[in-house]
């Protein structure tokens, strides 16, 4: 019993409860709302736009800052959904960058391709 008290005391003294967001994203979560997420080929990604217009989504290698691909698309106000294909992309950690027609960054996150 003494042992149990001792263990509980250690836990309470060394660990405190925290509430932090979970860094994962599914197709039902805004991909830019988390710092990074693992993605699969053909996965639907979702994000919000404040206004409609021409945007680009860029995928690049953050280690050498080299762009791998960039898609131009017409975005609509509110929720937008796109399919992400990964077969032609290198495996590992890449950045996903959303920019408006002026090449101003709207959002950025990390995607991990397995």
């Amino acid at each position: 019993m003494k042992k149990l008290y001792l263990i509980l005391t250690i836990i309470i003294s060394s660990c405190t409860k925290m509430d932090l967001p979970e860094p994962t994203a599914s197709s039902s979560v805004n991909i830019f709302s988390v710092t990074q997420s693992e993605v699969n080929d053909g996965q639907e990604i979702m994000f919000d736009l404040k206004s409609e217009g021409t945007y680009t989504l860029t995928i690049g290698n953050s280690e050498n800052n080299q762009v791998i691909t960039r898609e131009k698309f017409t975005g609509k106000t509110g929720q937008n959904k796109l399919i992400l294909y990964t077969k032609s992309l290198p495996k590992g950690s890449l950045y996903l960058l959303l920019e408006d027609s002026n090449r101003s960054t709207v959002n950025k996150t990390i995607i991990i391709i397995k």
Partner: protein
Amino acid sequence: MKKLLVILLLFASFLGFGQSVSAPDSKSFLQSTTAQDASGFVLSGFSATSTLLTSISLVNPPSGTTFVLNTTTGLTAASGFTLSGNKTRLVVTGTMADINTALQSLKVNTGSVKGNVALSVAATVNPTGYFYNGVNGHFYRPIATGATYTAARAASLLTTFKGQKGYLVTITSADEDAFIFNNVPQGNIWFALTDEVSEARWTIDAGPEKGTLIKINNGQTNGNIPGQYNNWAGGEPNNSGDEDYAVTKWGGGSQWNDLPNHFSCAYVIEYGTWINPDDATFTEFYTNSVTHSNGEVLTARFNFDFGGNVDETKFSSKANTYVNNLWSTTTNSPRSISGLGKVDITNDLDTAKINTGYKPIIAGGGSEWSYVNPNATWMGTGVSRLLIDMRQFGNVDPTTVTKVKILDAYDGPVNYLSHDANGWAQYSVPSILTKVTDGTSSFNQYIRNVNGSNTDYAFACSISFEQTSAFKQHGIELSYTNQTDLNTLYNSIVSVTDVYLAFKELSNGGLFGNESGNEFTSGIQFMNADVDDNGIFNEADTYKLLQHLTGVQSLTEYSALTYLMKLYGKTDYDAITKSNWKTQFKFTRSLFPFSLNTGTLNNTYNVNVTWKGDVNLSHSAQQTVSSVASNSIRTMTVRTNSVPNEINSSIITEIIGDKVYAYITLDPLQQEVVGTQFQLNYDNSILRFEKIDFKTKGNPMNYGTNKGTYVNVGSLISDGSTSLDNTTEYKITFAPTRKITNTLGLMGIGTTDAVNKAGKQLNVKIN
């Protein structure tokens, strides 16, 4: 002027030019012997005042092997280590001078178990807040600020140290567990182990071992998977309160417990994904190693030099032997080549000797069974004729005689000439047999000058026959990770720069008018550019290179490694010049033959690698003219093609109607770009290639080839008469094979290349 030199030296020192660790050559230690000299590691190029972190490690040594530093003046042992005593690893800090003094006092103690004694030394400027594990070559960074498990896991992935992405620490051995215990002051440390996906199925959650299942039941030892490291406290894990994540140093002790995610605990970030410290690719981190042996063991160790732009660790090797005109492997298990290009195949050697023939021993005393014609000029220069009476051969076939010992006058190889069953067997001896003719032989009383004219000598002798034997011919065969990766590698080896350079060399003094005629500076370049292997570099070769670039026809009929790679002993490679390259071995091969009949047990082979078509030697070993020790200085850096000149390019994809388009554009900046090459990968399960439209100035040769999973596209102005400008655009059209609404990730740029008018390779920055 002095001031300038001082400034330059300070600047160079600040930038850390020339930092390295050099290693001694291999040697054999005596078994069960203490304090054997293992000096020879030397740090150089570091600032004299910097505090360096240095690791000395024995990598998987034979039982009973340790080392000791007899001099440790000025050194401080890293946490968890002491300076004195026998060790298998030691991490210290100190100045370069103090560490070098200590390394000069390095001694090895051996036990009775024979085997390899691999010593590895690594050095870097001491990074505050990081701990180095000399056994696996990883760095660890303790984070004292508490976090939930999932936050710790995510935060770890966002960090980078010395060019390596971090991950929440994994603990895969008692050794690593002890390392964390000894080096991290906090208790209850998150590490990457979870059963969040399936209760009680504990799975490694980060790093190179991610996804490895180590335990399938809760309870201290229940369901522990054999071969996987588990170290749970009594009764743990028990999932008491939805505990899905693991901590080590539970309660300050040395064991593990499971906790719920919302607890805020310290954690450790690990950097490095390799097992062997030699494979480390940290930036500004320098390492070298040597493999000695404990006891006399026949060894074969290789140092492969691939140049700077090839990842050595993607190659593996197998030992082969050549028997009955066939090469066959001695093992089914390939050995990895380390990041330093090293591999030890000692344990794969076939050490059984084969009979190579017979050796007659001609000893003084007896009948005249043998004659010689010393210095038989009618047979050739420097040779003698030997005759042996056929009655002495017994069952020995005279054609199988390959060596002979003639009294004290000669002991060496002979060449069979002929024999007469009722007369003599005749051999050619590559010696003039001076001792037979000048009277200095101690067997002079058995030597008779037959005709008095010094041309015919008889030996009163007895003859016995010894069987001769030798190790089989060996070879080391290289292989690459897989064919797809090899195709990608070769695509980057033979690229537009190589083709342009070949054209430029060929057109010297012609097309540009003011050229002196020497674009190639090395015989290796000629050899690699002579892609039809006929010993002449001419327009037929440039045509083939162009066909390869444009996808009309590959340089080789087959794309296996053996048709692409060229292997040379370092000495032979360094001896290839612009004048002798035509007469040298020039063919591709992935198997390098080597002999064990060297008269020594410790065999180290230095092999240089180059490639058919690698005209600019971007992926080839550099030739050296000065002698370099077999353990030449190598430093670990991130492998990038170090091209100083840069141009810009961009890609954009879109879907319009029922077509998908990729546009690749160019901004040459200040460069006169005469060649470009882009590999555009595409998802062929969704897209079908249709065509390429080129928008280029002047009349370059534009090329575009569909390779099934990628399109090879670019331009070449082979005479350098014009250059590409920023209106250059390649528009690649695909048709979707099923309905799609967007293109994100369907296409992506892989390898790139560009070359300017001067033949300089350019870095293509995609932005």
